[in-house]
């Protein structure tokens, strides 16, 4: 019983982690993060370093110029390129979005700098069978439009859920042929009738957010299942949490 419970806890943690990873990965932010501050001994000042890319976003096959400047560094390297001069430029042509990570060292410490080059890969179907770019594939849909979870007796979108909705809206706006079904679900505590209205409000909260993000309302079908279709039936918080969700699927 304990093992069972633990596996569910792990599953919940995994789901949460995935959601976080996806949330981060789907943010196509193109600004380089600021260089990390280094902690250095007082005797020798650590190096300074910066790296830029121009342009920061390219189409596949185009090239980009990296430009880096350091001071006080004894050795400088860039991941994927190797040892480089302390200052310099280099033209690269990455095949996919790449994080160029520069490390500058001296006896006083290490300083890092990053720049992310985004490569716009044309909408090539991932699987040969999928030749309908506008409609996407099930795998892509599941990766980009993920379930969102709610607190008990709540239909308010959490910050994580709002992030999921943002990336879902981006995907749906890029695939205008997809119609979606939002299913609202509740855990099995409380009353069946009340939970159907609660699930309705959960599904409508997601629909409202998607419409606000530019997805046409007539592409979205909303169904509340209340507690009639349980994902799991254990009387544990992790199971209840998995049941308190909006589930998105392609509406065919």
């Amino acid at each position: 019983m304990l093992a069972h419970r633990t596996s569910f806890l792990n599953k919940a943690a995994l789901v949460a982690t995935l959601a976080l990873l996806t949330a981060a990965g789907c943010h196509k932010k193109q600004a380089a993060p600021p260089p990390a501050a280094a902690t250095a001994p007082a005797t020798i000042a650590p190096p300074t370093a910066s790296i830029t890319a121009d342009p920061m976003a390219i189409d596949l096959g185009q090239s980009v110029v990296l430009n880096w400047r350091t001071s006080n560094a004894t050795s400088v390297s860039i991941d994927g390129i190797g040892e480089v001069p302390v200052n310099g430029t280099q033209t690269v042509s990455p095949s996919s979005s790449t994080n160029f990570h520069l490390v500058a060292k001296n006896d006083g410490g290490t300083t890092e700098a990053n720049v992310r080059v985004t490569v716009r890969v044309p909408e090539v179907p991932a699987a040969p069978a999928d030749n309908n770019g506008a409609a996407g594939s099930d795998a892509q849909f599941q990766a980009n439009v993920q379930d969102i979870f709610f607190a008990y007796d709540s239909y308010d979108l959490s910050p994580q859920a709002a992030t999921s909705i943002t990336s879902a809206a981006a995907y749906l706006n890029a695939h205008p042929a997809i119609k979606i079904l939002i299913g609202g679900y509740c855990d099995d505590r409380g009353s069946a009738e009340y939970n159907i209205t609660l699930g309705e409000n959960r599904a409508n909260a997601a629909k409202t957010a998607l419409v606000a993000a530019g997805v046409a309302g007539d592409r979205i079908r909303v169904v509340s299942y209340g507690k009639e279709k349980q994902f799991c039936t254990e009387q544990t918080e992790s199971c209840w949490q998995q049941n308190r969700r909006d589930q998105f699927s392609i509406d065919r």
Partner: protein
Amino acid sequence: MQSWPTLPLVASLFLLLSASTLRAQDTFHLETSSGASSIRLAAANFKSAAPTADAYTHTFDAVLFSDLNSAGIFDVVSKSLLPQTTPGTPAEINLAQWSQAPTSAAMVAFGNLSVQGPNLVANGFLDDSKNTQYPQVFAKQYLGTASDDTARQLAHQFADDIIFRLSGGTPGIAESKIFYSKHTSPGVKEIWMMDYDGANQHAVTHLGEDSISPRVSPDNSLLAFSALGRDGFQIKMFSLLLGRLVRFNSVGGTNLSPAWSPSGQQLAFSSSRTGDPEIWVSDPQGAVAHRITNYKGPDVSPAWNPKTGAQIAWISGRTGLPQLYIMDSDGSGVTRMTDGGYATSPSWSPNGQFITFAWDRHYGPGAPGGQDIYVMEVATKRWIQLTHDIGRCDFPTWSPDGRHIAFANSPDGIDSHNRIMTMLADGTQKRALTESGADMPNWSWK
């Protein structure tokens, strides 16, 4: 007959509520159906007037005894204390035998069964054992096509007549029905019905869908419920006379939890056709729909005041956890009834005085509370708790005589283990009517 105390059970309930100034359950003692107000009633075994009727006497006697015993207004004499005679007619009974100890009956029900042609005939008599000069209270003949089920129905009719005479004119409920949602296979629930005592369980719908929340119309002609389809839950209307679905118009959104007005001319229900679940009222075809609540948050599970038709109780999550509210049937005069916790599934008593509902008073993660059945007096908001420590309870529904409440109970809290139970309206005499897999009972209006 007017001298008999009227509605002793409801009266006692009222006394309990009035007597309690505190909201603590410890002050309640719910032994209301015993004591001086109960009539001591003996039910003799019916005499078989012909060998062909022998097969039916057992069913008839058992059903009659059960009906009288569960009526809540009688102290029914145990069969083992009855005289060793089986009087079939008034000429054969020696009332002195029945009025003295240990029988000590104030009233005696007796009679005979016979098969005449295709029919089973029951002659029933009720005598006042203390009235030696004119003992007969009433005599009545009942008949129907001979079968075991007819024997059951004739016993119900005789019991109802006895209860009607001795309870101050409130009709008995032995011929009433309970509709409910039956889990028939994974993902499928059909609407079923049964006699009030749990007999004759059988399917009403065969839709192969997830059908819930049955509500029978006051004249027993229509059954409203909701079923899960492509567009979510929608209200369906089933004609019990035609045996098929009839039209009910829904205009978008989820539509569920129908409730009949006592006139049978209006249906209240929850609809999210405007995006937020609100209470709407329409005619029985779904036309002339108008919204009577307008507040963000779930509004669901309406229940009319069956006495007046002028008020509706319902459940609203407008302030967070669901609470019990009442309003006038035009949506005005909104009053919150519960002060917290998680309240669901109201049902209004036939006399309009009480609302029974399910309540988890300490709802929340880690809270030890259970979901139990409560009765609240509408005028004072004072309440009593009727179930304790028997697992999760929900969907209480009043019997037409106001003396009983049926409800769904899951001993371990798992939904699919729900079964339907009844109890007297003071919480005593609990018993299960079904096996597990039965949920959401709705007691017919008559």
